[in-house]
């Protein structure tokens, strides 16, 4: 794995805006960054990323079945009791799921296996840029001669998404609504892209802001014209929905939700200690435990994460030398876990984190995000990759 500088395509911003990538720059800061790329060998991709992703995915899926029928574990994961039965039913009935992203710390050949930081299995983002714009970058750079003919990329993400939509289409009422927070350019861009993939799979789609969803007298969710929403893809955390006024209506609404209710278990950082408990010593897992004393000082060599944190918020990290780094955020209302400190590798541009995608149940591609600090946050930049 290497970081290699390369000239930007002169017209990439215009392409981005023409092709639905309005969030290439966020709040004045670059998000898409093609001044460099990460180069992997095929072996690094297949042996170190793709295979472990498939393996960890299976371990995680195996866990769901145990957790849904164990009240003490559901409580441990801080999942509210009124949703337990609904979550368990969705698992028993195999409610279809679409996708997830695993984040790995990985430095390349010789430095040891990729280590799982966390699963983002409910509302993973950086999807469009990984699945589409990164692919376009490679094709155009090869066509321009800036990358060698025969350069490849680990990226079957979009094609696998369309297949996955086509597979679950049979079980979905139509149309499938796509929903996210109205004011988020990035989230709106991501659901527009997902809806595009669904349409390519033959599904009829509509969009609605999450704030605009209504509730009918008989407990069903509605769109702004009072049509019943029977199938909803939401880029909005399940645990937010649980805590909000309309959440109580979820179990009885008969809504087909994507991601499905059982993803509440896999998007929860409590999955990390549970995985470690069952598979202690697995080469791709880091030691992790529930942290019942978050008020105590964190010992050197450990990272403290809230069960529900997103985008690297509210993470506290103590390096092996005892240096402390902390990220701010709003997720102060849930229990915590501790995970063994395992630093991201350092390259010229900062610290890259590997986002490895699972669509349906297939490991199918990756995206790299770089941050200037050891904690990857929403300030990170997406950097494309190549297999050579």
């Amino acid at each position, binding site marked *: 794995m290497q970081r290699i500088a390369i000239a930007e395509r002169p017209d990439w911003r215009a392409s981005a805006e023409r*092709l*639905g990538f309005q969030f290439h720059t966020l*709040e004045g800061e670059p998000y898409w960054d093609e001044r460099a790329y990460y180069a992997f060998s095929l072996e690094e*991709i297949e042996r170190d990323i793709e295979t472990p992703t498939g393996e960890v995915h299976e371990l995680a899926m195996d866990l769901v079945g145990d957790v849904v029928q164990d009240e003490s574990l559901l409580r441990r994961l801080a999942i509210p009791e009124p949703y337990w039965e609904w979550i368990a039913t969705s698992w028993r009935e195999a409610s279809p799921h679409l996708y997830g992203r695993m*984040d790995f710390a990985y430095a390349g050949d010789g430095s040891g296996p990729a280590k799982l930081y*966390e699963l*983002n299995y409910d*509302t*993973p*983002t950086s999807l469009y840029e990984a699945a*589409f714009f990164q*692919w*376009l970058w490679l*094709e155009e750079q*090869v066509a321009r001669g800036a990358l060698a003919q025969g350069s*490849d990329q680990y*990226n*079957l993400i*979009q094609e696998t998404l369309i297949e996955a939509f086509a597979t679950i289409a*049979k*079980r979905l*009422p*139509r*149309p499938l609504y796509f929903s*996210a*927070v109205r004011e*988020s350019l*990035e989230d709106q*861009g991501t659901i527009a892209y997902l*809806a*595009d993939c669904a*349409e*390519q799979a033959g599904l*009829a789609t509509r969009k609605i802001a*999450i704030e*605009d*969803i*209504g*509730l*009918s*007298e*008989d407990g069903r969710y*509605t769109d702004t014209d*009072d*049509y*019943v929403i*029977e199938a909803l893809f939401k*880029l*909005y*955390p399940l645990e*937010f*929905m649980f*805590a*909000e*006024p309309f*959440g109580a209506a979820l179990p009885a609404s008969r809504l087909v939700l994507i991601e499905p209710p059982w993803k509440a278990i896999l998007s929860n950082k409590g999955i990390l200690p549970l995985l470690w408990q069952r598979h202690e010593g697995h080469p791709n897992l880091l030691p992790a435990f529930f942290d019942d004393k978050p008020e105590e000082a964190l010992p050197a060599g450990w990272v403290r994460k809230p069960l529900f944190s997103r*985008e690297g918020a509210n993470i506290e990290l103590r390096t092996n030398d005892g240096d402390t780094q902390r990220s*701010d955020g*709003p997720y102060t209302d849930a229990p915590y876990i501790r995970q063994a400190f395992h630093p991201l590798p350092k390259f010229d541009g900062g610290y890259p984190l590997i986002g490895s995608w699972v669509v349906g149940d297939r490991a199918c591609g990756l995206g790299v995000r770089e941050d200037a600090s050891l904690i990857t946050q*929403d300030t990170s930049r997406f950097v494309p990759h190549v297999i050579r």
Partner: protein
Amino acid sequence: MKRSRQLALLAIAQTPWLLVGCDGSSAPQEVTKQGFYTSIDACQHDGNSAEVCQRASNSASTAGTNTAPRYKSKAECIAEYGDLCTEREHESGGFWMPLMTGFMISQLLSPGRAPVYLDSNPIYRNRTGQYTEVYRDRGGGLAGGVGTRPVDIAPNRAITVSRSGFGSSAAARSGWGGSSRGG
């Protein structure tokens, strides 16, 4: 090769877009979009033009006179479709058939072009409230190869009594980061 040979964007690009990659050898594919509507209004509501919706409704209705399930007696039709039955005159004697309660449009989406209308089929509602469509087995011809199958959609309107019951966590946590989700 560990990447896709070709990718398309239909709706989010300014115009439908398709690129066959450097190593791509297959022909660009086209995509069919289906939509089930119980009225011309509902069809337009879903972003289709008035013209396409009217045409789809008419052609489904015409198709229905040829392909709808036929019953010798009113009682047989009612047993299946309840009140939604109608009588038709025919040279070889009259028959009973269900009334169309909606239509399914198929449109072809392809790069660089507006959606192309393909066809439209009638949808019926049986007495249990299930929407059904007529299908024809390939090669089965009209005789024997025809059946009905359920359309996986329920009645699609209800009275909304409140809104904005979702979204407050994002608002409460805003001012930090650009969005509500992520990871």
